[in-house]
């Protein structure tokens, strides 16, 4: 639907209850779609794990896959704000939390794989690995920073923290940068993938500086 129609519908011509109703339906469907989409990568990993399809280095396969999907969900959650302003669909904000929580879920799977399948909870080796290798250190820092965000991803926290909630959740930009560094430093020589993800991240940040986003309300 062209932007000007949506704007018109939501601003004046349509009765209030109708636009609220259609947004509610849209939110419901979009949330279902996100749930379905988000379950595919982890289901695939389980299927491949059971059928011996994870290749010669299964732990590395799971680490790469869960890490990549955490990054994808991070970028998806960052795309909501520019998308809202580009399409004038204010209701899109309602799915941002879900995307952010899926990022957290995949980040947790990623770290669990590292701690359990890769290092068998050998804490001495894990601490050494984190301290000695910059890419592991930035990855671990990024994960720690997601904890307060995940913990405050509910209505009660939003109400309790008020303005501070928004400042706290600005941490997502720091997390994004750390995660991209984690990716850059981990690849040996071929930086194609980190370059692509960094460009997408840069684009999503740049879109926030465009003039149309000045009139944002939240």
């Amino acid at each position, binding site marked *: 639907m062209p932007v000007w129609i949506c704007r018109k519908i939501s601003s004046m011509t349509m009765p209030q209850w109708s636009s609220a109703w259609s947004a509610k339906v849209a939110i419901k469907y979009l949330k279902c779609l996100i749930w379905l989409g988000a379950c595919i990568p982890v289901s695939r990993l389980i299927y491949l794990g059971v059928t011996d399809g994870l290749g010669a*280095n299964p732990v590395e396969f799971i680490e790469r896959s869960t890490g990549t999907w955490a990054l994808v969900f991070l970028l998806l959650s960052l795309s909501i704000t520019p998308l809202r302003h580009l399409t004038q669909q204010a209701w899109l904000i309602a799915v941002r939390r879900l995307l952010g929580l899926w990022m957290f879920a995949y980040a947790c799977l990623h770290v669990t794989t590292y701690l359990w399948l890769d290092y068998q909870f050998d804490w001495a*080796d894990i601490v*050494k690995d984190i301290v000695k290798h910059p890419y592991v250190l930035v990855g671990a820092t990024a994960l720690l920073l997601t904890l307060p965000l995940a913990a405050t991803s509910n209505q009660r926290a939003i109400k309790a923290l008020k303005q501070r909630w928004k400042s706290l959740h600005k941490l997502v930009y720091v997390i994004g940068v750390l995660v991209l560094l984690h990716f850059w430093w981990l690849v040996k020589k071929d930086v194609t993938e980190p370059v692509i993800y960094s460009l997408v991240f840069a684009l999503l940040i740049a879109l926030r500086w465009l003039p149309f986003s000045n009139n944002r309300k939240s």
Partner: protein
Amino acid sequence: MLLDNNRRNPSGILPSEITPQAVFEQRRTVLKAAGVAAASLLLPTQAHAAQTLDFHKTAYGKEEKLTSVEDVTSYNNYYEFGTGKEDPAREAVLFKPTPWTIRIEGAVKQAKTISIEQLMKLAPLEERIYRMRCVEGWSMVIPWVGLPLKALIDWAQPTGNAKYIEFISYNDPRHMPGARIPVLDWPYNEGLRMDEAMQPLTILAVGLYGKVLPNQNGAPVRLVVPWKYGFKGAKAISMIRFVEQMPNTSWMKASAREYGFYANVNPQVDHPRWTQSSEKRIGAGLFAGRIKTRLFNGYDEVGQLYAGMDLQKNF
């Protein structure tokens, strides 16, 4: 003339163009062979199953549990065919490792060329079961078939100026998709000190699992130095140069801070990226965890080569 010809031979086909019956009947065989060839393109590991080598077993690594042939031939670092681990098995299918010659030059009595067939006759082929430790923190146990590098060095007759030996890999961007991208300084080159090259453990491998070396593992001939990280093992060697100065290898040029000339497996010398104190054994399973990495990958006999040397500095 033309008319006349057509009357006697209404089809207009010259007798010389008629396919002899025997050849005509061969077409099924030809088609079948083409079918097999086409199928073998899809199944590279099975195509290679045809060529068995003549070799004798040795005591090296006979107590080790072998990494499966599937894993050894599907999880490879061979950047000329792509940077993904699965790329070489897929991209090297059309690579032709025969005919093959190795050019030998530099500090030798006389520069010369040796064919792969001649090379395989320099010494009896033997099986060596070696652990292979990759700098990325994983390892395999591979039954190589090959001959000591020393056999080739003796044949090459290096002069007294030969202090190092340099291996230059084949580089053909037309048939090696990865070589079109400047991820490394092509052609790939590696090197050894002469005493390392003469060490009995150092071999030129021409096969694995009793058969001709698959393309993705470095066919037709590659270097195997089991006490060093895997990247020292130059693949598809097309030139060997005896030199006086320490060669500047492809990985040293890529990042001298991360990859040294010696690249001896050493759990005490950490890599800026990967932990070197432990390793993952390929094929051990999802829940196997890591095993401790040993100095010189457990090949203690090479220790004397580095007596008095600071291994932290000369990594």
